[in-house]
Structures are given as structure tokens and as C-alpha cells.
């Protein structure tokens, strides 16, 4: 692969057709022939473009809106910032109660919170600014890119030929699909961060990770929240004990829970929306100032003209890829939410890099070889990595679980964060870790220790010999591991 002098290959232009927010310029390469063309500047696209450029490739990065994708602008970043504000608020409310009677409970000013979210987004966006990308040798083109043939992409009238391409356009919030609930009359898990006034009554449709996180957060900020889930439990992908703890935690906070309930219609009632629900054919209504629809995310394949490049896809599963992330066009790869069942930022970044390694660096990395953790950021958090127990048993793997309750962990007790557990799954009779579920206030951090152990082949016994700080919540992992050699 030819390398190129970075300073000579990029130049700044002004007057972009669609300027990114916060930047008044766009950068583009002097040539329209690239080693790698990346469509989408979200986590997958950015990670891929940077790795490719740093490896010496000529890289074009196409983005039709803002750098950073959903994660930064309307996903993981603002939601975690909102949850932080909500947690703070819940703490203040509790402290107010401890002060005694006569104290007013604090009222959340959502406009101030929203402004804080924007500041956080801008700060994190700085790490992937146009200037930084340019310094790394990435040509950024703003505009709606689409394939025009198996080897070329166009934005407007400009054509770009590529040796390899990566589709990394992410996913978008799925439409509500509720009769009577018109577009614009509800917010989604992406647009909710634009609210500047706290809804007095918020109805959340959907009990997946995003719906649960946002329902609990708004409840803690002071909204009266009703969450409607059409299945028998929240988080269908998680194990029973975890999902039940979450349900109780939300109920504890005051979220009104409607399980096994479908929203079958909606109507306007003045400034409010009335949702019509059905639970085993029992009809009911829920009136709300705001409706938040969080019924999943669908691959963003619109307008890419994938057919022109011979790329197989469908609207539900997105771009079809093999275990090496290659599409049906052998020169085009895909990464991130547009092709993954696991729609997480860290998976997008990882698969973005993997696609580049396979496409340009002659590697043969397999998606199935990844150890993928995930987390639902409720209070407590629910994190998982590897196999679920039922998955292992379906594969005829005899699995044994070593469990430590957070209520027995000193640090969890001192912090009053003792709801949850650590479960480490091993093959019965061995100590190889094949999966773990952690429910704890910092499960998202704790799960990474298990990921390292799994990635490095560290078994339960060795993990149990690793000294942990005291007191720490992570010591629950060590204690669960140590229990392997304890007599029953």
C-alpha cells in the first residue's frame, strides 16, 4: 500500500454544502481516488478511518450530518450525562428528606440539564474534530453519499472511486407504528435530549435498555413516568434474576410499570396525548404530557443505493456481512449498527477497526471471535459478557455459575449500593469463564475485569488470586471466583 505525506494530501475548504454544526469548513482530499471510502462518521466510521489513515491508506470519510454519529449526538453520551443528572437529583431529594419536614423537594430545570448535555457533547466531539481528522490524514466529505457502482461513491455530482469501502451508517430510532400517534407528536430515544421542559407525566413505550434507562432517569428527575412493555419482562436479552431486579428498582423509584401491554392507539387531548393500551384484551388509557417511543433501532440503509454496488441488505437486519464483515460485494465491508445485532458504541468501534484490518491489512479477523460486553445503564446497572446460561446449555455446555451478592460486599454496603450480584459462568468441572452477568451500581466498569480475564484466558482460580483493593465493589468478582474452591 502506498503511503502519502499527510500535510500535502489534505486541504481546507470553506463553504461546505452542509456544514457541520460547530465547524465552518470541510476538508477534502485533492484526489477522488481512495484506498478506503468510509460512509458514516459515527463510532465505527471514525475508528475505521483513523486506523486506515494511520496505516498509510488514502481515506475518505463521508458524513451527511455531524461527526460522532448517534452515540455522541443523541445516544450513549447524552443519555449517560442525563442519568448522571438524574442520579444527582435523586440523591438531593433523599438528602432533603433527611433534613426533616418542611423542606421543599428540588425541581429539575431540564433546560439547564439539556445545556449541560450539549457542553459534554461538544467536549467529547473535540476528540474527533475535523482538524484532528485532517492531521491524521482523513479526507472528510460532508453530504449524502451513495454508491453509484461497485467501485464508486458519489456525493452530489462528485464521484469518488475506491479500492475498498466501509458502510458504517449506523441505525436510527424505529418509528412508533402506533395508530394515531403522528410523527412529531412524540420523542424518540434520540430526540428526547432536545426537550427543555421536564414533562409532568411521561409515557415510555418500550422496555428495552434505552427505554428503561430513560424511564428511570426522568422519574428520578421528577416526572411521573409510566413504562409500557409488550413482553412479560424488561430486557428480554437478560437473565431472569437481572430483569426482575431492574423491574423492582424502577418500581422502587416510582416508575409505573405496565408489562404484557401493547399500545394499540393514540389520540390528542389538548396539549396531552392519550395512549390506548391493551393487556390481554383489557383496554386502558394513559394520558401523558409527552410520549417517548423507544422500540428499538433499525439499520440506517436509506439513500445508500446499495443495490448499485451489489450489496445485499434488508430493512430489518441491515447490511448482510460474513464473519469477516465483508458484504456481498467483496470490496465493501460493513461495521457497527448498520449490520450488527449488538448495537453498541464499543462494538461499532471494534468492528470498524476489524473491517479495516481485514480489508486493508490482510488480516482474517472474525466477528465470532469477539468477546462482547454490554450494559444497561439503569440504577443498578446490568452488564453482561459472553454466553448466557441458556445459550451455553443449548450448546450442550454444562455450565456452573459462581454468584456473589452485592449485599455481602462491604463497599456496596457502605455506599448503600448493595442491590445486585456478580455471576461468573464456567464450564462445569473447569475454571474457564464463558460468560458473566453483573448487576451493580458500577457494573459497566466491573464487567471489564471479566472481559480481560476471558480475553486473556485467565481462569476463575487465577482471577480469585488477584488482589483487589478494599473496600471495592469489584471485590465481588474476586470473591465469586474464590468461592470455586470453597467447600459447600
Amino acid at each position: 500500500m502506498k503511503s502519502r505525506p499527510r500535510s500535502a494530501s489534505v486541504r481546507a475548504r470553506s463553504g461546505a454544502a452542509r456544514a457541520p454544526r460547530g465547524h465552518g469548513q470541510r476538508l477534502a482530499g485533492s484526489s477522488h481516488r481512495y484506498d478506503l471510502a468510509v460512509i458514516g462518521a459515527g463510532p465505527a466510521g471514525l475508528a475505521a478511518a483513523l486506523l486506515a489513515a494511520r496505516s498509510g491508506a488514502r481515506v475518505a470519510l463521508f458524513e451527511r450530518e455531524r461527526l460522532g454519529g448517534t452515540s455522541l449526538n443523541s445516544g450513549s453520551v447524552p443519555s449517560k450525562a442525563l442519568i448522571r443528572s438524574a442520579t444527582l437529583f435523586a440523591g438531593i431529594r433523599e438528602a432533603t428528606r433527611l433534613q426533616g419536614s418542611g423542606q421543599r423537594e428540588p425541581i429539575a430545570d431540564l433546560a439547564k440539564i439539556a445545556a449541560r448535555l450539549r457542553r459534554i457533547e461538544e467536549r467529547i466531539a473535540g476528540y474527533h474534530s475535523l482538524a484532528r481528522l485532517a492531521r491524521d490524514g482523513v479526507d472528510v466529505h460532508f453530504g449524502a453519499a451513495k454508491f453509484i457502482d461497485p467501485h464508486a461513491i458519489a456525493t452530489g455530482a462528485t464521484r469518488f472511486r475506491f479500492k475498498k469501502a466501509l458502510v458504517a451508517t449506523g441505525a436510527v430510532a424505529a418509528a412508533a407504528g402506533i395508530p394515531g400517534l403522528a410523527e412529531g407528536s412524540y420523542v424518540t430515544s434520540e430526540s428526547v435530549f432536545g426537550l427543555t421542559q421536564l414533562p409532568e407525566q411521561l409515557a415510555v413505550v418500550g422496555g428495552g435498555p434505552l427505554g428503561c434507562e430513560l424511564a428511570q432517569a426522568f422519574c428520578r428527575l421528577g416526572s411521573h413516568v409510566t413504562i409500557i412493555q409488550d413482553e412479560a419482562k424488561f430486557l428480554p436479552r437478560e437473565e431472569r434474576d437481572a430483569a426482575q431486579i431492574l423491574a423492582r428498582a424502577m418500581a422502587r423509584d416510582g416508575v409505573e410499570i405496565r408489562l404484557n401491554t401493547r399500545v394499540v392507539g393514540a389520540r390528542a387531548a389538548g396539549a396531552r396525548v392519550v395512549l390506548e393500551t391493551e393487556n390481554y384484551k383489557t383496554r386502558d388509557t394513559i394520558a401523558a404530557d409527552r410520549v417517548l417511543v423507544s422500540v428499538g433501532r433499525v439499520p440506517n440503509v436509506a439513500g445508500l443505493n446499495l443495490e448499485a454496488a451489489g450489496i445485499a441488505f434488508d430493512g430489518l437486519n441491515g447490511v448482510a456481512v460474513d464473519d469477516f464483515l465483508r458484504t456481498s460485494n467483496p470490496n465493501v465491508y460493513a461495521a457497527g449498527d448498520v449490520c450488527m445485532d449488538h448495537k453498541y458504541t464499543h462494538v461499532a468501534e471494534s468492528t470498524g477497526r476489524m473491517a479495516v484490518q481485514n480489508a486493508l491489512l490482510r488480516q482474517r479477523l472474525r466477528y465470532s471471535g469477539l468477546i462482547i460486553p454490554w450494559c444497561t445503564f439503569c440504577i443498578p446497572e446490568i452488564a453482561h459478557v459472553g454466553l448466557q446460561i441458556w445459550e451455553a446449555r443449548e450448546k450442550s455446555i454444562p455450565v456452573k455459575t459462581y454468584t456473589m451478592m452485592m449485599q455481602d460486599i462491604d463497599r456496596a454496603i457502605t455506599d448503600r449500593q448493595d442491590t445486585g450480584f456478580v455471576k461468573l459462568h464456567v464450564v462445569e468441572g473447569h475454571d474457564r469463564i464463558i460468560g458473566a452477568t453483573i448487576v451493580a451500581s458500577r457494573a459497566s466498569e466491573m464487567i471489564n475485569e471479566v472481559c480481560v480475564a476471558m480475553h486473556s484466558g485467565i481462569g476463575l482460580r487465577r482471577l480469585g488470586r488477584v488482589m483487589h483493593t478494599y473496600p471495592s465493589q469489584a471485590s465481588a468478582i474476586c470473591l465469586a471466583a474464590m468461592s470455586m474452591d470453597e467447600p459447600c
Partner: protein
Amino acid sequence: MSPRAPPRAAAARVAASVSAPAAQDDASLLERLQRGAFAYITRYSNPLNGLVADTSRAGAPCSIAVVGFALTCYIVAVERGWLSRTAAAQRVLVTLRFFSASSQREDPQATGYQGFYYHFLDMTCGERVWGCELSFIDSTLLIAGVLAVGLYFDRPQEAEIRDTAEALYRRVDWRWAQNNTPTLAQGWLPEVGFLHYGWEGYNEALILYILALGSPTHSLGRSCFETWTLTYQWERLLGQDVLYSGPLFTHLFSHAWIDFRGIRDGFMRTNRSDYFENTCRSVALQREYCERNPRQVVGYARDIWGISAGDGPTGEGAREYATDRRYFGYMARGVPFGPDDGTLCPWAMLATVPFTPQAALAGTRRLLSSFPQVCREDRFASGFNPSVNPESGGWVSEGWYGLDQGLLVIMIENARSGLIWSLLRESAAVRRGLRRGGFSGGWLTR
């Protein structure tokens, strides 16, 4: 058949004592509490149709599961000399005739459908009440009692009992209850069809699968049970290797009829345990949890435990940042994963007496001495929460629940004589169901 006489029958026939529990030996205490529990069955049943009330509260409907326990209790009563065989047979016959003749239709007012029955029935006319579900597990508990009396009443003049019992079992369409899915549904409503809830993880459904597998007419495929057991979790928890299920009753209901000692299915063979041993370990787990008492509630101790499904106080506790202080009312509680609101089931310790007799009796004695208000007329209340209004003795559930009383009668008998276990070991349906479920070893191979 005529089951063996209980080994300690003479001692057991001692009249109920009025002395304090602490002054009674174990046999006398068991006799007293067993008979007290049985008195619920006769007191709260309708002699005209055999239906038994769910609770002692005014206007309570019949619970079909309680009827299943009651049928089995009549056997115990005969052996203990509390009822003549003739009187017991008459009660049984009235009950079986009612179910045999009851309406089995799709319409909402029926008593049952497809051989199953609605969870709650009107005590007088036997029709469905409360818009309740056609309950597959509660029907199973009823059928378990039906099978038990079909085995016990083996004399020539008792043929109608045997024939009717067999007919009731044969007409249950277990395959229909799968709703074309790999496993069994939990129930069905005439207005909407099958309930969405499935059976996930180990629980009281074990006997449901075994009786469904053993059916001579509508047997489940073997894979159905195996598919359900894929949701099992074998874990080391609070020092125990255990197939976890939170509420204690889930470790007891199937065991009221089936003797799981020494017989193992594929899951238990892999993990070198059996379901009986698993219940013993679950008791140990409850004791360990209550000794640790992480929620620092009043009452919990190594010898005061018993967290299960039962009545409890209600009330919306303060919306707190980190601690759940709500009370859940009637709820299936479990530990250590919860829910746990400090409510104990006073009957639960004693119900484990066939498994861990020392722990059961030590716990029961301590409970009776510390909180005698939980046992009136020699019958335990459904729930007790000493953290609620502790100055007035804590919250105690009103009256009694039939399930608790029926379970106690049977479990105490299994501890005293093994009567019901011995009886059901001879059941062709049970043996067939166990074998089709992959069970082997122990008494099943003999």
C-alpha cells in the same frame, strides 16, 4: 392398596395437646400442628361438591389447587384416624363427581376446558370466578390429588373413585397447553387465549411436566421437558451448590407427592445432585440469608426463616434513593435475589420437615415461642411481618390459606411415615412421566 402403617402411628394418635409447644416432644407437636392444619380442610370445604376455599376469609372462592391438596389430606386423615375410610371415600367421591360432571367448555362461565380447570371457582356452583385463568399448574396440583386418591382407595367398593380419577387424568390435554411452542404455557383465558408468561428457570412446574409426560392420552414429547430445563441455572450461592428458585414453596409443591430422593434427571446427573437434596440446600440457603439479614429486618435469624409465596402487608413506602421499603401484599418472595420485604411465611419452615427435620423443628419451635401470634387454633397464618408495627406484635395475615394447610398436612405426613411418597411411587403415571423426563436411579429402577 393398603399402605403400610405409619411407623410411629401409636405415638401419632395421641390426642392433640393443649400444652405449649416447648413442652411437647416432636411427635406430639407434629401431630398437633398437622391435625390443626387438616381441620382447615374440613371446616372450609363444601360437602355438597367437595370444593375447598382458597382462604378462610368470608366469600373466598375455591382454589382448585387446594382441592388437590385436600384430596390427598383425606388419605392422611384416614391413616391418622381423623376420618373413617368410608367418610373420606365419600368426600373424595363427591369431589371427583363434581369435576367429572363439571362443564368443560370454551365459554367463560365453565369450570374448565381441555381437561384443565379455572384457578378459582365459585364455592357453590363451581363456575369460574374473578375472570381468572385456566391454570395449568393449579390443575396439575388438583390432578396430583386425584391420582393419589385413585391409588389409595383400592377396595372393590371404591372402584368409582379409581375409575373417575383415571378418567379425569386421561382427559387433560397437556399437548394443547403447549400452544404449539416447545414448552408449556402458564395458562389460558377464554377471552384472549394463552398467557404470554412462560416457565423460566426451576420452579414448582416440575410436577406439571412429569404428569404431562406421563399422560397415557396426551403426553408431551420428551424434548418439551428438556427444553424447559435449558433455562435452569446451577450455581454456587451463599455457600450452596443449588438449582436456584427463590420462593421456598417452589422447592416443596412437587415434592408433596413425588419422592425425589435418589432419582435424577439429566440435569441432576450432570450436577451430581437430586431434587430432594436441592430442597435441602435451598433450606440451608434460606437459613444463611436470614442469619446475614442484609435488609436488617426484624425477626430474621438462622432459626427464623421461610421466605415464600404468601400474604403480606401492603403499602407504598417512601420513594427512596437506594433502598426499597415497599411492602408487596400477596407475593412470591424469594431470597437472596428478592423480592424480600421482611415478610415470612410462618408455615414454611415446618413444611420442610421431610427434608431438614432438625432445622424445620428448631425454626418452628423458635417461631412459636418468639411470635406465638402467627399460630392460632394450631394453624399458621399465611404471612407475618414483624417489622411492621413491631410494637403491636407485627403484621399478621388474617385467617388462613388453604394451600399452606394442605401442604403442611402432607409434608408432615411424609416426614412421619412417608405415606404419600410411598403411595405415588406406585403410580404408573408418575413412573412413566419420570422416565420420559429422563429420570432414573433409586426407587425408580426397582
